[in-house]
Each structure stands twice: as structure tokens, then as C-alpha cells.
């Protein structure tokens, strides 16, 4: 399995390059843009967004507790 993964990595550049060199202008532009975007993500800071915090989930958990309480009430 691991050997096959290594082989796949070697082919990586070829596939991207093939699409960037495509004669179809739509595919050529799409993959050129894709390459730029991926580079930006790999530099991380260019596209970094605020990460999830536990406090972001408190409202959802509170609503869920209310719903479970109502569920129990309706079934009793």
C-alpha cells in the first residue's frame, strides 16, 4: 500500500502540469488558478481564518439540551 502511495506522489506534478498545459482554455485557466490557490493555502497565512472555539458550540449545545428536555416532557 505504502509503495503505491509513493508512486502516486511521483506522478503528482505530471497530472497538474498536463492540465495546466491543456488546449482547452477553460481547463488551462482552471488548473493555473488552482495551482496558485493551493500555493496560497500551503503558505497558510494568506488564507488563514479564525479557528473554531468551544465557546462557538455553547449555543448549539444549549438548544440541544432544551430540545431533549422537551422530548422527555412530551413522552412522559
Amino acid at each position, binding site marked *: *500500500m*505504502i509503495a*503505491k*502511495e509513493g508512486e*502516486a*506522489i511521483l*506522478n*503528482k506534478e505530471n*497530472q*497538474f502540469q498536463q492540465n495546466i498545459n491543456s488546449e*482547452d482554455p*477553460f*481547463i488551462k*485557466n*482552471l488548473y493555473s*488558478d*488552482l495551482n496558485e*490557490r*493551493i500555493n*496560497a*493555502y*500551503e503558505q*497558510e497565512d*494568506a*488564507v*488563514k*481564518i*479564525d*479557528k*473554531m*472555539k468551544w465557546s*462557538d*458550540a455553547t*449555543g*448549539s*449545545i444549549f*438548544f*440541544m439540551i432544551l*430540545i*431533549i428536555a*422537551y*422530548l422527555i*416532557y*412530551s*413522552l412522559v
Partner: protein
Amino acid sequence: MSKQNSSISKDVAFGFLPASKNDRIFNLRDLILVQVVIGLSSFGLLTGGYTGTMLDAKQSLAAILFGNAFPMLLIVPITLYFARYGIDTFVGFRSSLGYLGSNIFFFVFLILTLGYISIALFMSGQALAEAANWLGMPAIFSSQATGAPFFSILLFICAFLVTVRGPVAIQKYTAVAVPVFMILMFGLLAIVLFGQGFTKVAHILPSEPFETTSRSFATALELNVGLGFSWLPYLGQYSRLSKTEGGAFKAGFYSYGIIVCIAALVGALAALVAGSLNPSDWMFSIAGSWGGFIGLILLSVGNVGAAIFLMYSQAVSFKTVFPKKSWMIAMGTTVPTIFLLLSSTFYDAFGSFIAVISFIMAVLGGIVVADYFFVKRQRISIRDLYDTQGSYTYWKGINPSAVLTVVIGTIVYWALYNPLTFEASDFFLHTAAGIPTYFVALVTYYVSSKYIFRYEVDMERPSVELKEAK
């Protein structure tokens, strides 16, 4: 390139590429609004309708709220993945399902969307046949046996012609259809609650309950759980454009988990009052003669808007997964809907359809959440997501752990509940089937990835370069 093709190409590129900083336009409020517009739909009305024929108002509310909110709470963490990397659902799922596996999942999404399109259009067809009957038109138009298929296929052709012209035409139609559907829903809710009185509605008994209340409750809950899980493939569409991960999480839960319950609640109350699960039957018995006629027209316009949105979403998703295919081929994937509109067979089997969706999406939800949070621990290589010969190839493009999980999840679900014959085990009466299936899938996938089908990409310190967003 024509203006229409240019707009479509722009949409395809927009869906295909990882979102840039400038693409991230949605704060929490924007994201909730855009997802609510999709979520408040005919399928919500119909799921509520089924619920209201089995349970009274108090229990319907409990089944609808829990059935939609809890599954959403279980799958909504995956929005963090889409938000962090700015990727669409079918690109994102390549890391857990494999490149080919994700494409196979895309075809499940196609079937789901075809089903939803046909439900929306057939409901419109039934409404127009009912309206034709009120207007005294010939039997071929006014009978449900011939009129509903005729009008629904006619509406499919209209929706196709609008959708094929691209986003500009769609925006014009949905600008009308979305408010129309809102007016219909809140109008129905107001007429039921203020016209009938809350106390009276609360005491109406359901028209078609099962032999025991626990069986009715578990079956109604399962339908709502199915609706809750069915949003899984749609979660990536907009959360990738969120400004923050927290915003994507909260918007997913509040819009698909809580606010969409309004449509189901309206459906349940209307079904209780009218004694029928079918929205086209509700209008005259709830809103009177002219009110009923207007309601039927609003229902049709709103549903055609939903069908157009779904058709466009399906065609653009097809182009995103297969960018080299033409726009007409992408639109052609919506044509099989016509076969589902030829009679009411599929529409009448909505309960089975949504239960089948429940089990498929519960299993897949367990897989993708387990993979991203517990197996890969949020370490993803975005380059490999797009390189279809990259690290997520697994076995010939399919992840064996995902296949094993689907098999075990299927066995567990069908042992608990058969959505085609409605046979249920005793355990189903206490837990329903979709939620336990989700947890079985989550654990199975984790165990399989860590101990059975071990790939380097799933190991703690993979040798391939994986970038972790900080």
C-alpha cells in the same frame, strides 16, 4: 464565449477552486439566511405532513425538533473542514472516501437531488391539478391520475429551460419563488394557529397512527432524522465561504437543524387539521375557497423555485466533479426526474425514500467525521485533494475502510428498521435507526482505518507532506 457560458464557467470555477480570502463573504447572519432559503422546502412540509398523520401536535413538535437538530449536531462539525480549506463537499470527501469513492458518493447525491426535484415538482403538479379541478377544467387536467403527472412534467420542462440559461435567469426566478414560499408557510401557520386556535389544534388526534404510540413516534422520528442527515452533501456548498470556522458551525446547526423545522412544523399542524399528509389537500380545507386556490398557486411557484435551485446545484456540482464535461451533459443529469414524475408511485413512497437517505447519510456522516477529526486529526493535504493520483488514492481510488463501514452500517440499519416494508425491531422503538447507525459507522471507520486497512496517510506522522492549518 457567450455571456451565459461565461457565467456558468465562473460558477464552476468558483465551486471547484479552494475559496480565496476574497471569496469568503459570509458572516454568521448571511450564512444562516442563505442556508435557510434552501432548507425551508417542500420536503420539510412533506416530512412534517407524515409526522402529523402519526402523532399529535405536542409529540410532532418533539419528533421534528429532535429529529432534525440532533443529526445536524452530529454531522455539522464537518463544516469546520470545508471552512478551513475553502473546499466543496465532493472535493473534501476525497480524503475519507478516496477519489473514486467521492465520485460514487456524488452519484448518491445525484439520486438524492433527483428525488428532491421530483418531490417538489410532483407536489406542484398535484396542486395545479387541484386548482384545475376548482376551475372546472376537463378531467384530463383536473384528475390526480393524469393531471398531476401532466402538470409536473410541464413544470419540469419550464424549470429546465430556466436553469439551462444559467445563474442570471435563476436569480430572477428565485427572487420571486423564495418570498412566495415564505408567504405560503407563514400564511398557513397563521391560519392554522389563529383560525383553528392553538388549544383545538393541540387536541386533534392524528389520522393514520400506528398500533402503538411508541411505534408512531419512532417512525415519525426516523423520517425527521432522515431529513436532518440528508443535508450532509449540501453542508460544504456555503460553509466553505464562511469568514470563520465558528460561523460555519453555528450557521449549519441553526439553519438546517433548527430553523428548517418551521416548514416541518407547518406541515405537521396542517396535516393534523386537514387529516391528510398531502399539501395539495390542505389548502381548501384550511384556507377556504379563494384562499385555497391562491395557496395552491403559491405552493406551485415556490416548489418550481426549489426545483430550479436543485437542478442548477446538481448541474454545477457535476461540472465541479467533472470539469471537462459540457454544460448540456451536466444539465442532462437532471432529465431522469421525468421518469419519477410519470405517476405518483415515487411521491407516495417519500417515507421510504427519506428513510433510505437517512441510512446512507448517517453512515457517510459517521465516516467523514471520524476520518477528519479522529483518524487524520485535521491534517489534510489540499494539493492531494485535487490531485486524483495523490495520497488519497487508497485502493484503486476507493478507501476500503469506508467500504467496510458502509457494509456494516447497512447491516445495522436494516436489522433495526426496514424502510421499504416498515418492519421494525424492538430496539428501533427506543432509538430509531439513523442515529445508532451513525455511531456504529463512526466507530467502525475509526477501528478499520487504525487497525485493519492501514494507510500511511492515516498514520500519526505520515511521510507524505501534509500541511496542517494553524
